[in-house]
């Protein structure tokens, strides 16, 4: 069943109410959202496994707090796409702005273009796959989950990192405090291959990636570091 919603005539609130009223039995329900024109907070707070295709660029906070829904943006997304996502899947065909998947607990964000700064900031368990590159301070204070970057990473990757796993295929401009390169084990290669497959990326292979993680020297207070404060 296809349902269209045109934001040239309707409002964001109406759209979100309509999407939220779909029940978990509506797995075959697919919404098309037309004329987003950079509007904020589209398809937020979804709780059922519906599909939502947004045809155009979106503004701030698209797909925030998503649970279960499969949301596709055919265009670019503004700041904080999929912020605090819990589950489900968000795909952006273009580029994403700052703070993509900030604090996301679960689910998968796929960015087919590039991400600007702070991608996956404070990540709490979700997975992020970026086909292009990520900007500076990505995965800042990321706690768990993983981020796969097929292109390059900007400055200070993984600053103050906790236990998230970071995989980068291209160049890393610099590592943030307490982020170090780690040995790639089979379990990591399996994770990368699995995420690439789920993201529909066929022109990359786990063997091309490097792994980065926490040196675990920062997040437990060490009296030897007292002079640094």
């Amino acid at each position, binding site marked *: 069943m296809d349902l269209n919603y045109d934001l040239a005539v309707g409002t964001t609130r109406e759209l979100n109410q309509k999407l939220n009223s779909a029940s978990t039995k509506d797995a075959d329900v697919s919404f098309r959202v037309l004329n987003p*024109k*950079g509007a904020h907070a589209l398809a937020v707070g979804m709780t059922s496994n519906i599909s939502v295709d947004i045809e155009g660029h979106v503004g701030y906070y698209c797909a925030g707090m998503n649970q279960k829904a499969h949301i596709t943006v055919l265009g*670019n997304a503004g700041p904080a796409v999929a912020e605090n996502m819990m589950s489900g899947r968000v795909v952006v065909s273009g580029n994403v702005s700052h703070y993509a998947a900030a604090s996301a607990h679960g689910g998968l964000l796929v960015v087919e273009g590039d991400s*600007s700064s702070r991608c996956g900031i404070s990540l709490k368990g979700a997975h992020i796959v970026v086909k292009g590159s990520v900007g500076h301070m990505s995965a800042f204070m990321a706690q768990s989950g993983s981020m796969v970057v097929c292109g390059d990473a900007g400055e200070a990757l993984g600053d103050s990192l906790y236990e998230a796993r970071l995989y980068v295929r291209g160049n890393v401009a610099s590592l943030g405090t307490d982020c170090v390169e780690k040995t790639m084990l089979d379990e990591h290669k399996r994770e990368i291959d699995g995420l690439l497959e789920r993201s529909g990326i066929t022109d990359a292979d786990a063997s091309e990636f490097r792994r980065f993680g926490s040196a675990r020297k920062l997040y437990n207070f060490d009296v030897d570091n007292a002079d640094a404060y």
Partner: protein
Amino acid sequence: MCGIVGLFAKTKSFENELGLHFSKMLEEMTDRGPDSAGFAMYHNAVDGGRVKVVVLARDSLDSIILADKLSSVFSEASVSDLGSGHLLITVASEIDGLMTWLRTEHPELTVLSAGRSIEIYKEKGLPNKVIEEFSIASMSGSHALGHTRMATESAITTAHSHPFSTGDDVCLVHNGSLSNHNRLRTELRKKGIYFSSDNDSEVAAGYLTWRLREGDSIDEALNRALSDLDGFYTFAVGTRDGFAVMRDPIACKPAVISETDDWVAMASEYRAIALLPNANNAPAWEPNPGQVYSWSH
């Protein structure tokens, strides 16, 4: 939070509609800055021997009397009342000659813009009110920069509003906040830069005025600003021929750029650009942190 918009015409036919499209962009940024709005329109350039200045008169000032006074000193003097205390003065003179005269004879007037092409208008209140007050939609122009302000660092007055003039046909709009503006203002005053408010963005404008006076190009001045200005900023700078955009290296403040065969546009958010003709098919991207982007005719 504030909103910035810039629109640059690439064709003569788009120049005729520039004000119409620009006013829509400015109004779309109302949510980001409902306190005041302002814009710099580059149009109706005067020829080489003349200069035009927009001044803000806080108390009513008879434009005919002012024109008479100017005529006794300058040739081809004219004054038009643009509304809301904005007076457009044109005379045959170098800028410095007119500025010196204004400071001596009418120190109560605030100079909003000076040059051959630029006119700056700004006012407290919702952008829509400012758009209507100055009939932006019916203006034509080669390019324009606008600002919707949500004040964080200083008072909500017309003088604190953007854009800020930074010299001959140059102006600045700013989204963000500067943390070293007090010390920098003191230093710039010693170098002879004049400030009309305690606004942090005016200090950035004053800084550019100083650097341009010292012979820097716009690109050089902005690159130097990266090390001398401490804070968060997306700047858009209007020049006689075009405009430049720069974000600080941390890049917390947003900016989107888009371009077609008819126009180049920048805005704090894509939704302001989405209103332009053929925006749907145009590439849209974010300017990189700490990098100067510029366009000119």
